[in-house]
């Protein structure tokens, strides 16, 4: 019976399923970028808010995974590559926005959430140094039990240093979940979790979509420095570099004037000052005070 069902599935499927697949195909073809997002663990109200927040920029489409797979296969032309990311609670997301921009937006929309016993830590869980605000009691022991350095000080329980109580990838114990809950620590980030995006012929992994804005800022600065240096060194004046070139030329003239002791009004005060400085520098090398006038004696 299961065999006949699977045969039937590949050949003919109920009309409502075919309609849903057609709708999904329309959805996939309606956007320049289509991705798979994980929606596991997102309370439905939060999910609704997120969908609303994306309105006008991206659309989330939930369906049965089997139908999504079928739709992706039907569209073909590369989209079927997304199939390998379809597992568990996932949804399609479509946008005409830049996929990098989509990733950024989804990351920003993530919110912290408590972690439950039995879940895997998505990152190192740290209990920060400080006053817990909890009155002295058995909680000190609970903290110490899970590996935090804690003691009673000034009438309340304090964590004496940042304590990593669980490493990324480890499973959260009942005790730890309780302590975190007591402290109000929410180590998870909940939100639409972008697993992959297919955009105009290219499949992107999330790590490819995570852009380091600081790096780009630094690149801009390097580019500006390069252009400034080239403009000045090649003496191609631009509005931005003309003052530097003028300053450089004036500095050269001054350096030459001082070096050659050219007697003119502009340089004279500095030449006089230089002569004075040289005099003092020489005087400083003279040990015999008899050889020096009073004002130069050390």
């Amino acid at each position, binding site marked *: 019976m299961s065999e006949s069902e699977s045969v039937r599935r590949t050949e003919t499927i109920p009309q409502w399923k075919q309609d849903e697949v057609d709708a999904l195909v329309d959805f996939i073809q309606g956007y320049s970028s289509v991705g798979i997002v994980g929606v596991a663990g997102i309370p439905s109200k939060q999910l609704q808010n997120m969908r609303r927040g994306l309105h006008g920029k991206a659309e989330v489409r939930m369906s049965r995974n089997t139908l999504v797979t079928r739709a992706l296969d039907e569209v073909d032309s590369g989209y079927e590559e997304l199939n390998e990311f379809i597992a568990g609670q996932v949804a399609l997301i479509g946008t005409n926005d830049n996929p*990098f921009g989509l990733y950024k937006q989804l990351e920003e929309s993530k919110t912290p959430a408590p972690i439950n016993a039995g879940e895997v830590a998505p990152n190192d869980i740290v209990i920060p140094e400080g006053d817990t605000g909890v009155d002295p009691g058995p909680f000190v022991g609970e903290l110490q039990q899970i590996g935090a350095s804690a003691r009673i000080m000034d009438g309340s329980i304090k964590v004496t240093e940042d304590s990593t109580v669980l490493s990324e990838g480890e499973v959260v114990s009942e005790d730890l979940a309780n302590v975190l809950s007591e402290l109000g620590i929410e180590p998870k980030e909940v939100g639409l979790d972008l697993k992959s995006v297919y955009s105009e012929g290219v499949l992107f992994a999330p790590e490819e979509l995570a*852009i*380091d804005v600081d790096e780009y800022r630094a690149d*801009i*600065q390097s580019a500006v420095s*390069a252009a400034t240096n080239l403009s000045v060194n090649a003496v191609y004046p631009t509005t931005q570099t003309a003052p530097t070139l003028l300053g450089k030329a004036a500095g050269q003239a001054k350096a030459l004037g001082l070096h050659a002791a050219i007697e003119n009004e502009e340089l004279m005060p500095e030449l006089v000052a230089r002569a004075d400085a040289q005099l003092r520098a020489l005087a400083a090398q003279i040990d015999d005070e008899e050889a020096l006038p009073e004002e130069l004696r050390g």
Partner: protein
Amino acid sequence: MEYVYAALILNETGEEINEDNITAVLDAAGVDVEESRVKALVAALEDVDIEEAIETAAAAPAAAPAGGS
């Protein structure tokens, strides 16, 4: 670095820094444009205050350009 230079040209001329414009500039320079790099640049620059970055750089040209790729 050519992608960043292209963005800076557009910034100077007041043209929008979008995918089409950057691609056009790079095309004209004979660059074999990678669409994904253009997209990443455009998305990244959305969060960069370009004028500020330029001014910071201009104020300290003594700092030689970092090893740009």
